[in-house]
């Protein structure tokens, strides 16, 4: 005979404000097999939990039903509570009286109370049929894969490596550093970006616990939390990493000019070159799509071969494949910049004097295409009027609805740098919708810009026009003066927003991480779990989760590293026992379940039964996520879901529809 305790929570007024919790507790107390029924203000509190534990002991309870908020909130908490009192934690049933009753039926308290009673009755019916279960323990690899070598990936790698974990840092481009390496100064301090970043880049290269794989990509992921198997392909540089000394003699002799990707196409580099100033590793790389010898597969050119004193060039270099076993993965693949040619009315890629913020960043940079000098692309001389246009591609239902978060601050920084470099002889305007300077020191930075007599125009232009001689002009209505301003700039910098990395589709499929509606990677909970994906063991950090600035990126990176350390520290993890179980005697070997399982958690195993070789399905417990697909698909009903059996559900249905219901008001 089961001995059930029922606890009805008021949840302050959240539940009690609508549901008559006393009546519900009273009703519960009269149900068969319910030995004790109570109600209390906050069941999850110290007092509430103590109440339950004492009752378990005092009344010899072997089942507990708690009617409270959503199990997503406190099921874990209450499982620990009953476990502390000696009861198996899976002999607990949570009935949701908040999200399913008080929050949705707030206008009808009487009916809500009746519904609450019914739900409790159903909970009692189910709890009787629950079985004790044990969490499963699996050992884990104390190694971590970090995908993406920008500041997020770099920070996470250093934190993990310092904590004693082996880290594999995989970066798609030939050098780590990401976006931050492209920046000139950073807001709000105007620190030189390279100066604060390069020491960390060097640390990564030197750290004994970090294996740096540049020019590499992940090609396959299998396994489960604590035990991932990842295939990485390292694409050939055609340069021997052990021999190259980074002298760049090869670059000087190469005849093939290609657009310099690091400089956003504003300058040219050669088919063999070092990816960026301060590249880590500082090793040359040959672009196989442009190098004459590699593109045409002929014995031509070869000038770099003769120039290289270290004899590091190897046209026969093959890609390398690695199979890595890791316990956790951090995705830090970053974001891209909006392509403003999608808004032809602003003149980007039509008029020379209209450029993007990332292009301007390279121009401002002393190691960029103009050695840090600012001039109007059309005329080649210093601009007299510079205009920044905000919200390009962001806060726009036609492109991306979200605010890019960094556009305002990046523009303030660039505008201040223009003032510092060109002095008083330049007029600087910022056309904005809202100025968002939300962080520490940010609004002070905005004030600094105003003090430098940068003019802020509260209004956005509709279009940018070019006169026949190539000079630009546009109209913008200003809210402050209620006047239409006619401005003739010689340089326009568009504040293009950050957009999801074009590889996110591939990443999403490879790692089984979802994307949110805005296209970025989806976190497990927007407020309380921003660094975890919905797949156990895979974490996200930096602007792949959403556009953000460097301080937030670094915070997220360290946070994700801490979460990984937390997960893998003990060398063992516990997994929920809410998995499918197959009765081999009923399994016909039809393989329907194996073909349906989205987590590849079912394997077909050969077995000899009475001398006959048969194929039977087997659940890989560690990978099973308890989705129930196989359970419903199995034609012989050989599969059962632990903690969610058919009998348990049918008992709830029975309780809901049974005769007792007609005897109301007892």
């Amino acid at each position, binding site marked *: 005979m089961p001995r059930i305790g029922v606890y009805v929570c008021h949840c302050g007024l959240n539940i009690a404000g609508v549901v008559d919790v006393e009546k519900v507790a009273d009703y519960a107390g009269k149900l068969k097999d319910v030995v004790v029924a109570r109600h209390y203000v906050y069941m999850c509190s110290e007092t509430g939990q103590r109440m339950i534990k004492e009752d378990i002991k005092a009344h010899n309870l072997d089942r507990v039903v708690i009617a409270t908020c959503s199990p997503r909130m406190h099921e874990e908490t209450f499982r620990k509570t009953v476990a502390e009192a000696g009861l198996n934690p899976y002999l607990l049933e949570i009935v949701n009286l908040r999200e399913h009753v008080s929050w949705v039926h707030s206008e009808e308290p009487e009916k809500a109370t009746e519904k609450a009673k019914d739900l409790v009755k159903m909970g009692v019916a189910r709890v009787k049929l629950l079985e004790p279960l044990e969490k499963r323990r699996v050992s884990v690899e104390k190694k971590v894969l970090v995908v993406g070598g920008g500041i997020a990936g770099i920070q996470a790698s250093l934190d993990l490596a310092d904590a004693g974990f082996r880290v594999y840092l995989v970066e798609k481009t030939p050098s780590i550093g990401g976006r931050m390496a492209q920046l000139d100064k950073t807001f709000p301090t105007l620190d030189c970006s390279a100066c604060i970043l390069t020491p960390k880049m060097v640390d990564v290269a030197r750290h004994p616990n970090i294996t740096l794989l540049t020019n590499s990509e992940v090609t396959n992921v299998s396994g489960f939390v604590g035990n991932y198997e990842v295939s990485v392909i390292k694409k050939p540089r055609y340069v021997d990493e052990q021999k190259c000394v980074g002298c760049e003699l090869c670059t000087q002799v190469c005849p093939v000019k290609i657009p310099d990707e690091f400089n956003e196409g504003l300058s040219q580099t050669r088919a063999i070159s070092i990816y960026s100033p301060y590249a880590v590793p500082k090793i040359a790389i040959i672009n196989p799509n442009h190098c004459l010898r590699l593109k045409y597969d002929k014995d031509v050119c070869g000038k770099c071969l003769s120039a290289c004193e270290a004899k590091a060039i190897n046209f026969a270099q093959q890609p390398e494949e690695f199979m890595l076993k890791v316990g956790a993965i951090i995705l830090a693949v970053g974001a891209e910049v909006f392509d403003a040619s999608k808004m032809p009315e602003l003149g980007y890629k039509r008029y020379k004097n209209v450029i993007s913020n990332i292009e301007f960043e390279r121009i401002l940079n002393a190691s960029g295409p103009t050695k840090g000098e600012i001039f109007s692309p059309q005329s080649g001389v210093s601009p007299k009027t510079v205009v920044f246009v905000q919200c390009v591609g962001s806060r*726009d239902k036609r492109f991306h609805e979200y605010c890019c978060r960094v556009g305002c601050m990046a523009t303030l920084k660039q505008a201040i740098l223009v003032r510092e470099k060109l002095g008083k002889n330049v007029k600087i305007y910022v056309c904005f*919708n809202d100025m968002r300077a939300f962080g520490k020191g940010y609004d002070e930075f905005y004030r600094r810009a105003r003090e430098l007599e940068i003019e802020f125009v509260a*209004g*956005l*232009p*509709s279009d940018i026009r070019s006169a026949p001689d190539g000079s630009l002009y546009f109209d*913008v*209505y*200003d809210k402050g003066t209620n006047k*239409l301003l006619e401005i003739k700039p010689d340089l326009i910098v568009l504040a293009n927003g950050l957009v999801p990395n074009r590889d996110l589709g591939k990443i999403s499929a490879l790692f089984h991480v979802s994307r949110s509606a805005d296209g970025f990677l989806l976190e497990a909970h927007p407020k309380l779990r921003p660094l975890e994906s919905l797949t156990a063991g895979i974490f996200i950090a930096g602007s792949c989760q959403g556009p953000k600035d460097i301080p937030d990126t670094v915070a997220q990176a360290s946070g994700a590293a801490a979460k990984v350390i937390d997960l893998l520290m003990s060398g063992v993890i516990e997994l929920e026992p809410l998995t499918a179980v197959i009765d081999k005697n009923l399994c016909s070997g039809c393989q329907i379940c194996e073909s349906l399982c989205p987590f590849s958690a079912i394997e077909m195993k050969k077995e000899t039964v009475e001398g006959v070789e048969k194929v039977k399905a087997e659940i890989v417990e560690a990978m099973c996520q308890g989705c129930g697909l196989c359970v419903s698909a199995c034609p012989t009903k050989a599969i059962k879901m632990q903690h969610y059996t058919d009998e348990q559900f049918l008992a709830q249905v029975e309780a809901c529809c049974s005769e007792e219901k007609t005897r109301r008001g007892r």
Partner: protein
Amino acid sequence: MNVGLTDLMSMAKPNIEAREKFLSKLGNKELVNCFQCLKCTSGCTALKLLELKPHEIVKLVNLGFVDELASSDIIWTCVTCLKCVQRCPQKASPYHIIMVLRNMAVEKEVQIPEEYLKAFSRILETGLAEASQEVSTRKMEVFDRESLNLPKINFPRESFQAVFMKIMEEK
């Protein structure tokens, strides 16, 4: 014509009912998304010559000054170039708002530009909004459809007038 917006606004008070009625006529609520970026006004064809500020119209409707707008002359300055519809980042579409305000002006029997009423009469009588014209060449010779060997216009059948009036008179 009728009154300027500034005068109408001088003692105006917001009217929530009028705003609700307006929103149901418009059929969508995107205008509440307007965040006053001023892009529409910056590019408005009618701004320089006629001082039309679409952002102001959207804001005024949102705040409940529908009646004042419907009675004003400013709503008849819109050129219907549709640039504001195309470029608004929140799809608030000032053009559609202005058209509903015009319909409201007609309902309230405020004085509207005569040409619209003349066009209506012509459509009622002939089915077309314009009357056939004679045109002259650069050499001052005069032609019409017939002399240009263009086919006769097939005016609508008799039943057209009554059916058209039906929908015009409906509430």
